[in-house]
């Protein structure tokens, strides 16, 4: 009968044969289910692992790199920072509120599993244009899910992204990044060790929710009517349970009561038990009969693969069990011994599943965790690649009315982030709405420090669709610039690779190009990749999403005692553009892949501007040092700063004008092309000391040009735009509400 069951469980005939080989016999139903979930794309990365190996992962600050639950960086002063990014795309498409909420719950567990207290969340979101009822339902649901879970569990959401593109209409993307901090000496890893030690299940009871959820959901694209069948898998999050779980787990770690700890995420107990055992090179006996149930009549395989939320697996010595029990009781967290660590010389490293006294499954733990097949899937570039790249929007005729098209590119995302607590812990110096979030490096249980951490999430599917390799490099450059604008030096990268169907050779080509582009760019900026996540099968009835790598970049600030110059214009100040104004080569102001070309002209093809990593790093270091002067309390030559990114110079200027409530008069901008080009490596600065700023820029090898003066009631770019600031502000502020809450 297992002859067909393995297919239903998402295993190919070859994979089934491999399992038979590993076991030396036919697997039973439970064993097949274990392999089914553990060898799924979601848990095993079988299509992407081969490529991910090419990413640079080492650096002198890296304490823990990819492979563990989260990457960990040494931030100094005895404090380590843990960071991780995850996707919850498919669950969110089926039930946006719960899908997004459980996405937040899952990423938090990855962080406090490392011993870190979760201190901040970021949420890059991608939807179709929010004009139909379905897109509004998705956006409302996702945002309310993140809001209700994140706010209640007590972790501020300090930033994110919001991108609308038709390619996400059927398959929205919900990525969540979490950052936590811990005293370096509390760092723990998800390892089991010590024969006879106890495996203790902490937290919620186990139900049928999410059985095969992640695996089934994440490994099969959407085909309209099939959604119905998938619905029973929906998981409901309980932020109150998670809050108690966080406090209990951190208290257990502070008290030194656990040997190892691991969250239960995709593939539930099957994953947590096999991974902790495999990492520790030991075996584990698990008794499904000892697992507290929420529902009657669950089969052992259901208990092992259930993805019920808010559960952790802790490895504790028999001697400390009473203390563990007592501490969990205080926090009203359920704790049950569900297994023991085994070091059986005769059969080392076995995961033995019992139901009471009879053994219902017995497999090598490492074969579940590590022996999943690695696929080198066929890949090739899209047939029409050259045609696409030559179809360049640069040089399309100037708009009749630049002002209108500029206004159309302005979006105030506060409709989203007003629904998020972004202030808890009193650390948020710069919250959502600026270039990057800037936080004091402080929190309950951390040693005192004057340092700061900054974090930004960035993506640009419109670039990556044109050229995944160059596109992702430009995205990393933008992230570095965003950090510089809040005075931070980048130290580590996490990435969430959202792609289409890996069985389509173009998609595998996109993935491979993206990895190479990211690897090269990371080397160029001297940044390690400390973690990531891959989400494949983001497609709707055969149509793949644009390649969507989302980067989270962590930055550090040595001394944070004063606020940075805002992302705003100050009336009377001089506006200076830092960085080269013209691209080398034929077109000085390329428009390929720009928001203007895509959103105002519907031109999605062309060539991307080139990135000069060395020049970009010089600019970023220069800007970061000027802002850091202010952070350290030494004042700054800057009174406002903002990098030029999506929408180009026009949008960056407008965002600063609106934020500062100040008009501006700018001259010498070379037509709509310079107004809208997304040429990288440019930062807008407002200053009261333009001479000094330009002198210091020259000394630092950074081009600088005075382009205008802030002040007055109008936003004017000579020969291109002349509108009242109020008008501009209104279109910016109302952009989302107009579409989401049509009267």
């Amino acid at each position, binding site marked *: 009968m297992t002859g067909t069951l393995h297919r239903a469980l998402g295993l190919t005939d070859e994979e089934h044969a491999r399992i038979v080989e590993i076991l030396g016999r036919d697997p039973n139903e439970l064993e097949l289910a274990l392999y089914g979930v553990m060898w799924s794309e979601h848990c095993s990365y079988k299509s992407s692992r081969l490529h991910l190996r090419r990413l640079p992962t080492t650096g002198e600050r890296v304490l823990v790199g990819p492979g563990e639950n989260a990457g960990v960086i040494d931030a100094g002063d005895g404090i380590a920072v843990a960071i991780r990014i995850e996707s919850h795309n498919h669950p969110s498409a089926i039930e946006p509120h719960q899908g997004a909420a459980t996405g937040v719950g899952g990423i938090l567990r990855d962080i406090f599993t490392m011993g870190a207290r979760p201190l901040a969340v970021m949420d890059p979101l991608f939807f179709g244009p929010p004009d139909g009822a379905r897109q509004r339902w998705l956006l409302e649901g996702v945002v309310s899910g993140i809001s209700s879970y994140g706010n209640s569990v007590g972790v501020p959401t300090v930033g994110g992204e919001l991108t609308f593109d038709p390619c996400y209409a059927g398959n929205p993307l919900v990525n969540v990044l979490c950052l936590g901090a811990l005293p370096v000496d509390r760092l723990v890893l998800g390892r089991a060790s010590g024969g006879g030690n106890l495996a203790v299940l902490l937290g919620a009871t186990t139900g049928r929710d999410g059985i095969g959820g992640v695996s089934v959901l994440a490994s099969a694209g959407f085909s309209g009517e099939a959604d119905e069948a998938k619905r029973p898998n929906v998981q409901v999050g*309980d932020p109150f349970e998670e809050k108690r779980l966080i406090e209990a787990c951190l208290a257990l770690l502070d008290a030194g009561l656990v040997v190892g700890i691991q969250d239960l995420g995709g593939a539930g107990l099957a994953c947590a038990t096999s991974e902790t055992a495999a990492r520790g090179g030991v075996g584990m006996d698990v008794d499904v009969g000892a697992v507290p149930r929420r529902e009657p009549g669950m089969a052992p395989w259901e208990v092992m693969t259930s993805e019920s939320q808010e559960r952790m697996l802790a490895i504790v010595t028999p001697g400390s069990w009473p203390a563990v029990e007592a501490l969990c009781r205080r926090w009203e967290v359920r704790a049950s011994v569900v297994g023991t660590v085994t070091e059986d010389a005769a059969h080392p490293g076995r995961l033995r599943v019992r139901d009471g006294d009879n053994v219902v499954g017995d497999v090598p733990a490492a074969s579940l965790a590590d022996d999943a097949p690695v696929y080198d899937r066929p890949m090739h570039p899209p047939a029409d690649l050259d045609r696409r790249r030559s179809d360049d929007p640069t040089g399309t005729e100037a708009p009749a009315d630049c002002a209108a098209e500029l206004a159309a590119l302005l979006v105030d995302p506060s409709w989203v982030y007003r629904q998020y607590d972004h202030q808890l812990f009193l650390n948020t110096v710069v919250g959502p709405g600026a270039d990057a979030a800037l936080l004091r490096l402080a929190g309950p249980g951390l040693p005192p420090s004057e340092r700061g951490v900054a974090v930004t999430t960035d993506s640009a599917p419109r670039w990556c669709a044109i050229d995944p390799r160059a596109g992702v490099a430009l995205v990393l450059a933008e992230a570095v610039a965003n950090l510089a604008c809040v005075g931070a030096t980048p130290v580590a990268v996490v990435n969430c690779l959202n792609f289409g169907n890996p069985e389509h050779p173009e998609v595998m080509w996109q993935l491979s190009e993206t990895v190479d582009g990211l690897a090269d760019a990371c080397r160029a900026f001297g940044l390690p990749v400390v973690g990531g996540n891959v989400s494949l099968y983001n497609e709707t009835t055969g149509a793949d999403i644009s390649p969507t790598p989302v980067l989270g970049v962590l930055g550090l600030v040595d001394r944070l005692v004063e606020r940075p110059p805002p992302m705003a214009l100050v009336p009377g100040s001089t506006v200076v553009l830092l960085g080269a104004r013209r691209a080398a080569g034929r077109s000085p102001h390329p428009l390929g892949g720009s928001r203007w070309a895509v959103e105002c002209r519907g031109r999605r093809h062309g060539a991307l501007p080139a990135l000069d990593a060395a020049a970009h790093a010089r600019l970023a270091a220069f800007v970061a040092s000027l802002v850091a002067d202010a952070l350290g309390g030494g004042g700054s030559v800057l009174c406002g700063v903002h990098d030029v990114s999506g929408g180009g110079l026009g949008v960056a200027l407008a965002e600063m004008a609106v934020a500062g409530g100040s008009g501006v008069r700018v001259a010498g901008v070379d037509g709509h092309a310079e107004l809208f080009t997304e040429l990288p490596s440019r930062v807008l600065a407002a200053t009261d000391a333009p001479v000094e700023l330009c002198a210091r820029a020259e000394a630092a090898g950074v081009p600088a040009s005075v382009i205008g003066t802030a002040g007055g009631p109008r936003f004017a770019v000579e020969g291109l735009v002349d509108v009242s600031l109020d008008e501009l502000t209104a279109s910016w502020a109302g952009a989302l509400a107009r579409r989401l809450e049509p009267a």
Partner: protein
Amino acid sequence: MKFAVRVEVRLRQGIADPEGATIERALPALGFDDVRGVTAGRSFRFELDADDEAAARGRAGELARRLLANPVIEDADVELRPLARTGERR
């Protein structure tokens, strides 16, 4: 005819109900150790115009499924009774 409708929306069997569970955990402390199986749901009331009870039931059911309940995780029960012309209070 006018009908008074009550729609009760409840989580489907098997879907976790953290609110119900939390309330139940709190009860013993309040001296209610004789209470079990607490579930939390939502309830909506409204008035509906329809030609007859069958039509009213159809409309109310459609409204419950399309707007009031989240069919992914919730079921809806519909109860209704005809109202006297006078628009008697529910």
